[in-house]
């Protein structure tokens, strides 16, 4: 079963983070290594700040291209890990080790279906 571990947290600049930046990078490195060693990691990604995002909205006047995120909230979706583990308990065991759990909510979302060789296959 595949689960997305979604990391939400308030965005801070490297200047604001200071020493915490190197520390969080090291923590994410260790987390990625642990996930890989356990053979459960499908993919991992940490995104640029939401100021770099672009949102497309279809409306009456056609497609609108907009600067910034779809929802302007305090916590932003900052990254995600997709893991392949047998059940929610196992996914939660990994989610609680996500370094960002100390800065913002970590959401564990089961996958319904995913693409393999161009075809949608059930994730269970």
């Amino acid at each position, binding site marked *: 079963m595949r689960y997305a571990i979604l990391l939400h947290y308030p965005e801070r600049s490297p200047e604001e983070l200071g020493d915490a930046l190197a520390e969080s990078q090291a923590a994410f490195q260790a987390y990625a290594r642990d996930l890989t*060693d356990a053979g459960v990691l499908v993919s991992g990604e940490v995104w640029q700040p939401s100021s770099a995002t672009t949102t497309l909205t279809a409306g009456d006047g056609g497609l609108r291209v907009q600067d910034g995120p779809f929802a302007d909230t305090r916590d932003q979706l900052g990254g995600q890990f997709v893991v392949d583990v*047998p059940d929610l308990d196992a996914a939660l*065991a990994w989610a609680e080790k996500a370094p960002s759990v100390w800065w913002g909510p970590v959401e564990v979302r089961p996958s319904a279906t995913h693409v393999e060789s161009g075809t949608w296959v059930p994730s269970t």
Partner: protein
Amino acid sequence: MGAVDLSPPADDARTAVEVTVRASYGRLLALLASWCGDLALAEDALADAVERALRTWSADGVPANPEGWLHRVARRRALDALRSSARRTSRPLDDAAAPAAPGADPAAIDPDALPDRRLELLLVCAHPAIDPGVRAPLMLQTVLGLDAARVATAFAVPTATMAQRLVRAKRRIRDARIPFRVPGRDELGRRLPAVLEAVYGAYTVDWARTSGPTVRDSLAVEARDLALLLASLLDDAEATGLAALLCLSSARLGARVVHGVHVPLDEQDTRRWDTRLVEQGEGLLRRAHAHGTRGRFQLEAALQSAHCARARTGRTDRVAVLRLHRALVEVAPTLGARVALAAAAAHVEGPRAGLDLLDPLAGPCRAFQPYWATRGDLLARAGDEAGARAALERAVDLTTDLPSRRYLEGRLASLG
């Protein structure tokens, strides 16, 4: 400048400062904090005094009583800070020398000897008004002088988060005016379990969050130091039992992981155990038992002692171990204790007896890794290979630390 800094007198002064701080940090801080009621202020004042010592001692020589010197200077710094700040305090600050320990004849003791207030400090750190999660970090920082970054690493929390929690706790101690005092026997009896729990928490942190710190980063040694300090400050059966437990348990740290694979207690090479720590633990356990009262930490220490006996006798007294597990579950019926009891019962009464004890735990243990690892082990011994496989696979799925995963995967492979 550099040449001057490296000259021998400066080096001597630096060494003297380092030695004094290492030996007396907690004692000095406890004394300052119990006097002014403000841990952060006491820490700043002491840091200031240390800095001043580095400069002054290299010029004027190391004073005859370095601790007394640091205490005097830090006290003056704290008073200066209190006077210069607009902060109002209704607490009378006695500017005279520190009072001698109650009951002691002031003339009979060294006038420079400093009273020990570390027990008061430990009780403040584990006060009911302090969040249980920050008690152990607070003890490690104030009593042992560990920096926030080191504590944060061991607890797998970002340094800034840990620092913030510590600052908040210290502010709370000051603002709520939590008293630095040793309460009477009855109240002490009620307050002590929280102190012991926090020290134990500092020890178990690396086993709890196993994918985080390695044994090297863990605070096992520091937690043991805290327990030994507590046992020396207080003639109490459980405090002594806890010190015994941490000595005996940490004696086996070097045997827990070999070639990156977890080694269960029964399979550990006893030559890798630290005999000096085993002996120290045994001595403490005898002292604890002399009190003639029973308690959780004494029982856990007695269990460790029963296992450590294998180094001498070559075998484990399974009946004694089972009896201790039963007593422990009576005193502290945690899930972990009940799973361990099932494993101990299986050794004496057979795997089926152990499985009978595990069955009622299935609900609460759904995501409890030790339950599944034990269940897998017992099913394998009972000859149920398919059941063992399923349970061990479940245990692997719930394991996030690599040495334990490797061990369980080895068990799975041995099922054929």
